[in-house]
């Protein structure tokens, strides 16, 4: 663990370096780039949820003004394009090991750029039209004539898992691609059989979509002179995109340059390559012109990778004193038409027991194909779902068995003395003070004042409910990271392979570097996003970035200081142990000789240095870290309901988050705020609804997809707690996803509490006013009938 006294920048709420360009309109988002001679792509998308492609007639489209080409699946296949290598099965050391039915390899369903057999979801791209202008490309796309043979379809995951459901992939006997059992079934059976109480709940955490405000866009270009491809496209990791595109195109990764500069929000949606990215590169070479694609918002709603969609059935075995004895869970994840990422199912699987000491747990984890847009990781991938399941189950247990819901939680929390704690499915929680989090949030949210606030609401004819949830979540992420630390003329440059979309890496990584190298924060520059400079890196997802970056930068700093010392020793002709590094200066002991980083860097450029000291004052450091960390916290909210209309108003929202060491509290609080909004959005407004009669997605725009907005979100009370993780030098856990993780649970807990006098009706998210009102009416009708 690093010494606290070295921290001058770390821990401070430093305003961000990246702001200057973003607040003056000088950001560089994907659509901001144009190249001379560029042409435009428009996609033709399947209107059917499931259909065989019988024929595609390009003739009329090719006649349209400005249209240069029309590409279909056969063209991709004939040119030898490969499917996108999504690698959907999480496979780091500590990931839960998901397997196919009968312990087989998981069949993911290949993602070719354009299909030639069938369309498997509404919106699947089946052709691409390229024209001189965007309008011409769109008009051309309208003229592509496709004959489909409509096939039976299935959208709901439970229906899709039935043996006789319409089959998406002939390679499998049914749509179930993952079927794995974790835990000790016999022990669970014993515990359940002998328990005083058993409580069960089944719920569906529905489908939402990330809605980053920047629609995805890509500009592809092939230079015949250098035989290199260049793509401007925001993503969740430029290096990963480069590898994926290289595999798809069948070329050496070094022949591709990915430029991912400012990214307008990610939240997981951009972690995997989109078909349009490979297509613009491939077609730019065929046409000899740069090709640009940018998604409409309606295309983003339809074909951004979506999130969540988990059906979960959970049971708790409880003894007479309220101690949790065992837990059973059965989780069914809807991956969509093909499997792009099993992260949600996998990450959630490791955390089904939540913050609680439940000695025995079993999980039946399944994933199923359906005729819907593929899902992948979305803000806290998998953890809000399982947190929802355990927290709502505990609320239910408390209510049914007559326990106080906070007391029942306290009685079962994992204690700090138990850390590192191995939970019932094998996850090893590194550190945390869960009960202290509870105490803090009850204070922060003025739990004691709730009864008075409720009475006041009632006097105005309203209901007021209080919601509570604990959470623990995990950050694993791609295990490898690389940092280049380069001392330049008057600044230190760090090249790193993370990919921020608003998390402030240019600032927080500079804070870390500044303190490690004892240079002023203002003299550190972070370089990201250009794969000609960034040679390796894991991208940004799952809260991995600060932990991996700070660690590899810390290790690299040691290397750099050592190189500096060796250089100094050589230049001053003294033994190595006569050189010290202190306060940013390299000194020769017992002399006045001292050189700053920049003076030493200048000297490092000279000729005649021994081989091991050549190359300038710079180092490259790789690191691989598999050990996960477990951010955790507690959350409280109050919701006022108008029983006449079902309208809801969040009056209070307080959260305590243990993020391990907090590098920049300004940034971390901001992450919590945004994370809360996304979780609340799922609970109250967001849903990728599908018409059960036709299989058509119903939420194609902001007119239908409700969002957190200025006037439906409250201000928050957020508190950061720093229980340092013993797993990395800075003690970092993660701060990006803890806001989201408990949010759906705490909102539904509050609504449930508000509606207690109406019989605690089960309400599925999103809890819209009409659902609230209907539940109240149903209760009144039942009372009348009784």
């Amino acid at each position, binding site marked *: 663990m690093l010494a606290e006294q070295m921290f001058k920048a770390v821990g401070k709420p430093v305003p961000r370096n990246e702001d200057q360009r973003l607040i003056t309109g000088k950001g560089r988002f994907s659509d901001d780039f144009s190249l001379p001679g560029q042409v435009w792509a428009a996609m033709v998308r399947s209107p059917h949820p499931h259909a065989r492609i019988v024929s595609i007639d390009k003739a009329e489209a090719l006649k349209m003004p400005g249209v240069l080409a029309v590409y279909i699946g056969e063209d991709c296949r004939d040119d030898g394009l490969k499917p996108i290598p999504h690698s959907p099965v999480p496979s780091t050391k500590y990931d839960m090991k998901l397997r196919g039915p009968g312990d087989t390899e998981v069949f993911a369903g290949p993602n070719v750029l354009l299909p030639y057999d069938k369309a498997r979801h509404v919106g699947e791209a089946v052709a691409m039209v390229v024209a001189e*202008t*965007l*309008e011409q490309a*769109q*008009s051309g796309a309208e003229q592509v004539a496709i004959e489909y043979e409509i096939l039976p379809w299935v959208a709901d995951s439970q229906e899709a898992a039935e043996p006789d459901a319409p089959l998406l992939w002939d390679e499998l006997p049914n749509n179930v691609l993952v079927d794995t059992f974790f835990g000790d079934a016999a022990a669970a059976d014993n515990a359940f059989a002998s328990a005083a109480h058993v409580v069960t709940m089944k719920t569906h955490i529905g489908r939402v979509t990330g809605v980053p405000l920047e629609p995805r866009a890509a500009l592809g270009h092939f230079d015949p002179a250098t035989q290199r491809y260049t793509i401007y496209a925001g993503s969740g990791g430029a290096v990963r995109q480069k590898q994926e595109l290289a595999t798809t195109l069948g070329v050496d990764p070094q022949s591709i340059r990915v430029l991912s500069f400012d990214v307008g929000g990610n939240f997981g949606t951009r972690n995997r390559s989109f078909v349009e990215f490979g297509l613009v590169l491939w077609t730019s070479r065929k046409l000899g012109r740069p090709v640009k694609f940018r998604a*409409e918002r309606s295309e983003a709603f339809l074909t951004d990778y979506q999130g969540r969609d988990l059906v979960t059935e959970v049971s708790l075995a409880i003894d007479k004193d309220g101690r949790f004895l065992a837990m059973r869970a059965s989780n069914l994840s809807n991956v969509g038409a093909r499997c792009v990422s099993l992260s949600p199912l996998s990450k959630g699987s490791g955390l089904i027991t939540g913050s609680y000491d439940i000695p025995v747990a079993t999980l039946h984890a399944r994933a199923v194909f359906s005729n819907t847009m593929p899902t992948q990781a979305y803000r806290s991938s998998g953890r809000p779902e399982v947190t929802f399941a355990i927290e709502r189950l505990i609320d239910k247990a408390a209510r049914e068995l007559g326990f106080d819901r906070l007391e029942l939680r306290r009685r079962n929390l994992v204690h700090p003395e138990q850390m590192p704690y191995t939970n019932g499915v094998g996850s090893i929680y590194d550190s945390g003070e869960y009960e202290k989090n509870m105490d803090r949030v009850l204070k922060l949210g003025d739990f004691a004042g709730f009864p008075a606030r409720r009475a006041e609401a009632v006097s105005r004819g309203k209901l007021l409910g209080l919601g509570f949830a604990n959470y623990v979540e995990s950050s694993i992420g791609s295990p490898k990271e690389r940092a280049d630390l380069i001392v330049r003329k008057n600044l230190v440059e760090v090249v790193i392979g993370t990919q921020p979309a608003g998390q402030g890496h240019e600032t927080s990584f500079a804070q870390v570097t500044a303190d490690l190298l004892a240079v002023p924060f203002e003299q550190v520059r972070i370089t990201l996003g250009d794969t000609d400079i960034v040679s390796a890196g894991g991208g940004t997802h799952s809260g991995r970035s600060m932990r991996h970056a700070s660690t590899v930068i810390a290790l690299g700093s040691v290397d750099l200081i050592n190189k500096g010392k060796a250089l100094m020793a050589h230049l001053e002709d003294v033994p190595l142990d006569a050189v010290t590094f202190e306060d940013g200066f390299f000194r020769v002991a017992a002399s006045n000789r001292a050189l700053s980083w920049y003076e030493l860097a200048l000297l490092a450029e000279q000729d005649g240095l021994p081989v091991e000291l050549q190359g300038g004052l710079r180092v490259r450091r790789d690191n691989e870290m598999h050990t996960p960390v477990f951010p955790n916290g507690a959350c409280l909210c109050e919701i006022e309901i*108008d029983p*006449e*209309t*079902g*309208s809801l108003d969040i009056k209070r929202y307080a959260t305590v988050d243990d993020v391990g060491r907090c590098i920049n509290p300004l940034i971390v609080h901001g992450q919590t705020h945004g994370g809360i909004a996304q979780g609340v959005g799922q609970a*109250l*407004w967001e849903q990728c*609804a599908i018409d059960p009669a036709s299989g058509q997605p*119903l939420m194609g725009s*902001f*007119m*239908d*997809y*409700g*969002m957190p907005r200025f*006037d*439906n979100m409250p201000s928050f009370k957020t508190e950061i707690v720093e229980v340092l993780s013993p797993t990395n030098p800075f003690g970092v856990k993660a701060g990006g996803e803890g806001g989201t993780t408990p949010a759906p649970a705490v909102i539904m807990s509050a609504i449930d509490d508000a509606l207690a006098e109406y019989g605690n009706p089960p309400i599925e998210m999103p809890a*819209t*006013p*009409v659902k609230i*009102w*209907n539940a109240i*009416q149903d209760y009144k009708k039942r009372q009348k009938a009784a």
Partner: protein
Amino acid sequence: MVMYPTRYHRPKSLEEALKLHAANEEASYLSGGHTLIPALKQRLAKPSDLIDLAVLPGLSGIKLDKNVLSIGATTTHAEVAASPVVRKAIPALAGMVGTIGDRHVRHRGTIGGSVANNDPAADYPSAVLGLGATVVTDRRSIAADDFFVALYETALEPGEIITRIDFPVPDRAGYAKFRSAASRYAVAAVFVAKFGSVVRAAVTGAGSGGVFRLRDLEQALVKDFGPAAVAHCKVDPGAMLEDLVGTSEYRANLVLVMARRALEHLGEAVSYK
């Protein structure tokens, strides 16, 4: 998406605008553009010509003459909402207009455009019908009761241009709206107005045929103009819109709740979500 190619015109007079429309079968008028342009961007229509009425002199402005408040067709929502004349004469109208869309939409959207479009969830139709206004066009005057024909359909003839809307000033009026979380349009909204012994109550957002008068409530309010009158009214769910935002029963309920709240907040507009 990108709009289909079209031709844009800045007519210098009403006559020129009418001539341009007559000469081009597929022409559309343009005012604030905040209904038409989004539709064109969805490629839902392909007008050959766009004739910009917002540039015409004399179609904008607010005037109070005795008991008639006249609002020019190209007056923006922001101008109406902020107008001291409207706020004094019919504060519920000013308040209502201040809830249309958002600030930026209100800087461009116009009363003429909104009324001519007759969106079943738009606010203005409920005020026009609720106040018994007169829609004045280039060729005639149309009473509100005759103006709103069906969903997105009005009594306007092809090419006919609204020049102003004359609102009789009521003794009292109120507006209450329940908005959809996503679209922010009305799920159910009621504009109620009293003119001596005449009461009008118009509902938008809820009816399957568009804006309509709640006759039941009007009669009850003539006897007793106040929130208590709502208790005697019923709304037929069968006449309500049904979608993911609200079932027909829910809308029927909301209509009465909004009616009551409009009566509890006379002289202003209240908005819920």
